[in-house]
């Protein structure tokens, strides 16, 4: 055998570039020349260069999760300040304007800067690992989606220190958000920030969909994908169709405010209800986009702690997709009190109740998994089981508000606030924390602390219910949402005091979780490859995974590649997975593309190297939006040109990626025929 080739980051040199080949199959031992070459090919450069240019999905995923958690803490502090103000009647801690900005930024932060991005983080990190791929389909686009998310978050917060933050609620109804009632930059920041954030969400969704259809390991047919993949796929499809609605609505609002168009201008035939339609046509599917991947986390991780496969994989996967499909025809239930025709009320009320069917399918599947399994009471199990309980409570209050007559009583009261916190915290935050306990060993190579984890869960669970359950009662007692204070004789004093105490208890639980996180990162016991004895592909590689993920692309023979020896259903005449031998693909950064339905090997994909283009494009496009807020039109135009230049440099066909012929083509004068 010849000496190991000098590693070449940019694939074959021109001379050896071929347009097709039979991919080599073999084993790659740790420490072998091939493994070292893969390491060198896929590793990011050290120092700040690698930091700004890396396109590794694992790095990007962790950045997403950490950034989203920073936003979660900011939104949480905003909530605590509001709860201090509301703990007693006639409080004067906050002025009405300060309160308006706080509740708006709390909503914006939690729903747009935490809830979806944290799940994008999980999916970015996990998708290639659970699908048996080397990276996402578009690694550079992945980096762009993170940078734009980060800059959009900073953008949305940029006016906060000046006391000019968005202040018309996260759903920003006109005419309150129109120029007539809101002259400052508050709403313009919100409008343009949301358009910017929409770019991040959209390119992220494009990437997930393309990754799903291209990058699954051979043999991973659609019915073998983990449920998390179904959840994020559904969310991405929903986002592709829903995000344009809100981006357009915010752009139209900005045009109304800055250039005098008349979309929402009642005096000239515009309609405020158009805003509500466009906002909720987006926001209702979005609500499912921020819960379905989290439900996927539970569907994949809960069975590991029940020591059995998920009960009803197929119904759960179909319910995931079904929830989103129905989710596109229920937006009017946010608008029951706007005086729309009775027929529409009846249709959208019943459609909203139909949502409970797929939700119940998933819920019974989880309960059956626990009931028929042999539960192992580790920390993630508690978070996932707690999630099921909170989801049921939030679901019941959801069905209650889907009933039109009851909704007329409850709309805009604290009952709705209670409902949405039960579903969003219950279905998002609990699975996310459980998911972090579950995958922390994979992220860092270390285990988190069981005792801390259990104490943290108990405090969080009790704090959550003490904080949010009384809100139902406050709502039934008639307390409207979004009021900055209330008189002492309304009968709301006790429930508000309990809610405020509960919210601080909840915050204490978050603090315990964070301490555990930091402590375990430094001192947690070493985890090993598969500390939970879990069945999916990410646990077949080292913790943390090497930069190339899989030294050889695995062949997948079942839904539980690591449990095949003990699941009789997946043995016998069925084929088995092969994890230690497979395609090597080490001529530069390469990945395997497979067919959409069956996952048959189809193409050797050339993956791009690290690049500054995503970072630069993110910076330039964000500065372009900043120029629009400041009315600095020349600056805006310059940034637009810079963005275009970065994009063209990015898209220029590369020889190394075999996007063009290795040698210049000449006119051969063939027949057109």
């Amino acid at each position, binding site marked *: 055998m010849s000496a190991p080739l000098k590693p070449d980051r940019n694939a074959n040199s021109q001379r050896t570039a071929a347009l097709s080949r039979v991919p080599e199959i073999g084993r790659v031992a740790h420490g072998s020349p091939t493994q070292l070459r893969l390491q060198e090919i896929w590793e990011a450069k050290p120092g700040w260069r690698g930091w700004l240019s890396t396109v590794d999905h694992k790095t990007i995923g962790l950045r997403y999760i950490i950034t989203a958690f920073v936003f979660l803490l900011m939104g949480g502090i905003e909530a605590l300040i509001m709860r201090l103000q509301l703990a007693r009647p006639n409080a004067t801690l906050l002025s009405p304007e300060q309160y308006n900005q706080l509740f708006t930024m709390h909503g914006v932060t939690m729903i747009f800067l935490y809830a979806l991005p944290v799940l994008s983080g999980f999916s970015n990190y996990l998708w290639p690992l659970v699908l048996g791929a080397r990276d996402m389909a578009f690694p550079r686009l992945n980096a762009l989606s993170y940078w734009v998310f980060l800059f959009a978050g900073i953008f949305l917060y940029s006016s906060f220190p000046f006391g000019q933050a968005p202040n018309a609620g996260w759903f920003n109804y006109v005419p309150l958000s129109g120029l007539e009632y809101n002259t400052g930059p508050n709403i313009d920041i919100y409008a343009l920030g949301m358009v910017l954030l929409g770019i991040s969400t959209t390119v992220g969704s494009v990437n997930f969909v393309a990754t799903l259809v291209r990058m699954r390991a051979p043999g991973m047919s659609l019915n073998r994908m983990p449920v998390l993949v179904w959840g994020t796929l559904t969310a991405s499809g929903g986002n592709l169709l829903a995000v344009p609605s809100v981006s357009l609505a915010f752009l139209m609002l900005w045009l109304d405010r800055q250039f005098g168009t008349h979309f929402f201008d009642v005096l000239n035939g515009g309609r405020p209800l158009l805003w509500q339609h466009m906002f909720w046509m987006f926001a209702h599917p979005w609500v499912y986009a921020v819960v379905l991947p989290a439900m996927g986390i539970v569907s994949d991780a809960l069975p590991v702690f029940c020591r059995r496969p998920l009960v009803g994989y197929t119904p759960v996967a179909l319910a995931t997709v079904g929830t989103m499909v129905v989710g596109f025809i229920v937006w009017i239930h946010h608008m029951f009190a706007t005086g729309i025709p009775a027929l529409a009320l009846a249709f959208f009320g019943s459609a909203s109740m139909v949502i409970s069917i797929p939700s119940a399918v998933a819920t019974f599947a989880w309960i059956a998994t626990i009931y028929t399994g042999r539960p192992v009471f580790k920390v993630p199990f508690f978070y996932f089981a707690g999630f099921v309980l909170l989801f049921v409570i939030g679901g019941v209050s959801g069905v209650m508000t889907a009933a039109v007559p009851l909704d007329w009583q409850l709309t805009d009261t604290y009952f709705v606030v209670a409902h949405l916190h039960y579903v969003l915290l219950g279905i998002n935050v609990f699975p996310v924390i459980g998911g972090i306990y579950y995958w922390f060993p994979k992220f860092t190579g270390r285990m988190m602390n069981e005792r801390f984890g259990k104490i943290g869960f108990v405090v969080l669970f009790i704090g959550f219910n003490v904080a949010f359950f009384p809100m139902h009662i406050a709502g039934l007692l008639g307390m409207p949402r979004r009021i900055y204070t209330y008189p002492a004789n309304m009968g709301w004093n006790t429930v508000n005091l309990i809610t405020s105490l509960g919210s601080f208890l909840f915050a204490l639980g978050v603090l315990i979780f964070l301490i555990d996180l930091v402590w375990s990162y430094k001192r947690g016991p070493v985890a090993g490859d598969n500390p939970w004895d879990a069945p999916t592909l990410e646990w077949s590689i080292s913790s943390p995974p090497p930069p190339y993920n899989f030294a050889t692309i695995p062949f997948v023979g079942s839904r539980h590649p690591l449990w095949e020896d003990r699941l009789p259903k997946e043995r016998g005449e069925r084929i088995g997975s092969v994890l230690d031998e497979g395609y090597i693909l080490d001529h530069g950064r390469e990945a395997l593309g497979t067919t959409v339905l069956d996952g048959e*090997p189809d193409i050797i994909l050339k993956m791009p190297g690290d690049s500054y283009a995503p970072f630069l494009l993110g910076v330039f496009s964000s500065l372009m939006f900043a120029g629009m807020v400041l009315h600095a039109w020349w600056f805006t135009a310059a940034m637009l040109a810079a963005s275009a230049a970065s994009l063209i440099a990015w898209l220029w066909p590369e020889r190394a990626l075999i996007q063009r012929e290795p040698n210049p083509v000449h006119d051969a004068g063939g027949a057109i025929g």
Partner: protein
Amino acid sequence: MADAFDVFDTNRALPIGSAGKRSSGWWGVWTMIATEAALFGYLIFSYLYLSSQSAQHWPPEGLPKLGLGGANTLVLLSSSVFVWFCERCVRRKRLRLGVASMAVGIVLGIAFVGIQLKEWHNHPYGPTTNLYGSLYFTITGFHLLHVLVGIVILLLLLTWTALGYFDDKRCAALTIGGLYWHFVDIVWLFIFTTLYLSPYVL
């Protein structure tokens, strides 16, 4: 126990890099078209919703004139044919003809922009005159922006083709860029139907 090796023909040669419809970009552009189609769908929804709610005469300036807009529609649609023909030439190694065809496609795209601007100029109303004007200029403006982006893409494709980057085996960029351009053309049919034709029947 049989294993997954037995299922696939592992001795088959696989194409490397961006090979036509097997390239990731081909899938990527379809997802982008899906989200862009949704965007135009929401624009058309806004128009239909606001016009249905309007108490006044709609459109306020009377029925739209069809002549210029109709001719412009033909200009735009014909450009798609030349873009398609360019890829066909490249696949048969007729580079010069391909470049010429792409150039004609680009000229037709620019002609569309010119005629559209002329039509904007002809209107007695502007984007802020009334609600109809806001809708008309926003919807056609959005489309015009897409045409301009499309023209930049076509210019890049022209350059790359002229530089000899593409032949029958590697021309995914032409397929992908062409798909985007066809989308921009086809979506215009929906806009034309909504803005120019629907006032005659609604």
